[in-house]
């Protein structure tokens, strides 16, 4: 298991292939270099913005790819491990395979695109923290596990297939769109923010109340949605005398 925290355009910028190969990494508590695991060709750009990183091999056991990056691009032509794009502030990451957990946690900007599936904790807060994803976009073309957008404050997460449990728990902003089905626990203790589910929710949270049916377009899909507000068991702020709830839009039965 390699801690690949150096694999970001910000770190690679201004470095030659030899310098990049000498960058630090950890395998457990053992100090290693990127060159111990990767053949590096080509040099970094002058700044992060002109740096594009392409990883050809399998990164199933490489963590922190693109974490904390502010600009530039990273492309992984295979799978990646945990913390892809964690704390990311800008730029673009494209993983062509599957990814493990904690992708885009506490990210503030930029874009993450995953062609395959994601495991748990997509775009959520770090364990214990109450300041989740603030901005940017995460798009998972496959399905995702549990704890999506926990403590989310802003930005957008799109899961194109199914998700398991715990969506937008404790969220106070941001948008989560799930195009497939969800097992349950959608929007628990959610204060503010939007959720769209285009498939079915197997078990609804009891703290959500249906208020209307509306037509909406979301991520290129136009449909009728049942509009729920919640979580009614949680505190909610007021704006212009009106209580602000979290909104859940669940695709209406045809």
């Amino acid at each position: 298991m390699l801690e690949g925290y150096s694999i970001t355009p910000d770190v690679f910028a201004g470095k030659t292939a030899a310098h990049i190969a000498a960058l630090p990494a950890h395998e457990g508590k053992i100090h290693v270099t990127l060159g111990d695991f990767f053949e590096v060709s080509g040099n970094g750009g002058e700044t992060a913005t002109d740096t594009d990183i392409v990883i050809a091999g399998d990164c199933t056991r490489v963590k922190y790819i693109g974490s904390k990056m502010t600009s530039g691009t990273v492309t992984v032509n295979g799978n990646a491990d945990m913390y892809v794009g964690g704390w990311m502030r800008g730029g673009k990451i494209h993983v062509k395979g599957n990814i493990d957990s904690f992708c885009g946690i506490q990210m503030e900007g930029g874009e993450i695109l995953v062609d395959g599936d994601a495991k748990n904790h997509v775009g959520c807060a770090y364990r214990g923290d109450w300041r989740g994803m603030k901005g940017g976009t995460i798009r998972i073309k496959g399905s995702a596990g549990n704890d999506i957008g926990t403590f989310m404050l802003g930005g957008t997460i799109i899961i194109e297939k199914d998700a398991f449990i715990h969506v937008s728990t404790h969220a106070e902003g941001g948008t989560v769109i799930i195009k497939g089905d969800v097992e349950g626990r959608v929007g628990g203790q959610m204060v503010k923010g939007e959720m769209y589910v285009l498939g079915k929710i197997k078990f609804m949270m009891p703290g959500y109340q249906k208020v209307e049916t509306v037509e909406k377009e979301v991520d290129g899909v136009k449909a009728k949605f049942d509009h729920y507000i919640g979580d009614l068991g949680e505190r909610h702020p007021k704006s212009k005398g009106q209580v602000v709830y979290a909104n859940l839009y669940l695709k209406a039965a045809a």
Partner: protein
Amino acid sequence: MASGEIIVKGGFVVDPIRKIDGDIGDVAIKDGKIVDKVSSSAKVIDAKGKVVMAGAVDVHAHVAGPKVNVGRLFRPEDKFLSGAFRSGMAQKNGYRMESGFSIPSTFKTGYDYARMGYAFVMEAAMPPIYSPHVHEEIHDTPIIDEAALPVFGNNWFVMDYLKKGEIENTAAYIAWLIKATKGYGVKVVNPGGTAAWGWGLNCLTLDDPVPYFETTPREIITGLIKANEYLGLPHSMHIHQNNLGNPGNYQLTIDSLKLAEGIKPKNKFGREQVMHSTHLQFHSYGGTGWGDFESKAKEVMDYVNKNKAITVDTGNVTLDETTTMTADGPFEHHLQGLNHLKWCNVDVEMETAAGVVPYVYDPNIKVCDIQWAIGLELALYAKDMNRIFITTDHPNAGPFTRYPRVMKWLMSKKAREDVLNSFKHKDKVIAATNLHQLDRELTLFEIAQMTRSGPAKCLGLGSIYGGLAPGMSADVAVFDLNFKNMPSNPDMIEKAFQRAACFIKSGEVVVKDGEVVSNGHKKTVWVNVKMPENLQVKRDITQSFTKDYTVDITNYPVRDYLAPHPYIIDVDVEA
């Protein structure tokens, strides 16, 4: 304790107990004690051009025990504030991994205190039934000497005896409990209020009744001061007052301080106060709400300055993200209602309770800035610097690692103005406080009083810690500050106090050039009160353990192996 001889040569010695203020001199050490002179073969530490002080004494910090551990467990994110989360030192020198910022690991706690030249730290609130855990954690905290104050202010026995006015029985119970928990003195947290919290209530004035016990905070405070003096303990009653942290609480604070009037200190340890009022910053608030929230530091200090029977510590807000934790259960619930962050509440049987909530003292929020100013004003209004001590109520108002920053603010008007000028609501903060008008800059001598001679005397440890007189513990800190030519950049003061150039603890060099070079030999200090047997109290305790407690009385006391390096202070109470 290390054997061998050391001489710290040629530094500017600042030692209030001997009234030495920057004279160039040597400090001689032999067998863990300060001595008059050593032989020519003594190891020489060159302190030329540097300040030499005794090891510092922290009168109030939460560094060990269940609520600290709750904080550690429920704030994994705190480690991101500790800087590099792999310690360079741990890997290079073979010392322990360090982690955490507001709730550092035990190892980081010991190392960080030592790096700042601290020799003794008082754990400020020990829940009696969890005292074995407190002692285990104290033992796992390297280098520094520590003691712990068991909490009494909401204890069922205490309230039962005091409602009947039974000072002697209260004293007998205190004597038993301090011995059983290997504790140090009498801590009181929100007297009556934490017990009322068991009914979802609080005590916000001195005369609010405590449900079921039919006593009041006033009776508890007065009774515990009297019981403390009846026993003649080294430390006085140590109180966290009622109605902490609420606008307009300063009047209650002054009223509570007045309860110390007319009671004479009675002890053989050189202590002159009968009440230590802790983290006074949280109790010096004016205003009717957060909108007109203002400083009443001057009003509170005007009273403290007049009454010699009181010592205080500041509880400075350091404008950091931190973790609040206190036996004031209702306060933590109130705080969680304000900031909506995670909250943990613990009820401790017949003894106390606790709450933990993270808190961000955000410099962009007016109230936090006013709190920051109040803490500094308290020290700047003080007349006797031997009766006011620097604390942050670690970690409640900020981590103890910010003490050097507090010293910088107290020593430099420029440093304070720089912070004031950085505030978004600068004008409102200036209008609600007096800090901007205060030109006073504390001297190194006054800082040494606030952190060395003062707190040591207040704890009744003035003959052991906080000074450099022959016979005292050889705790000597050398700081890279030129007494005759202090740096014009106040940040250099903070830097010097953050990382001592050298720190000798119990006669052993434990810090060199700001880095830990030894795990030292820590001691646990506790008070052994010997009092003639009181049959009624003995029977009450036995009955209560049979009837109410979850543990048997034989399993309750702290076993000797949990405090394997004790320093025991004997107190003989005459019949």
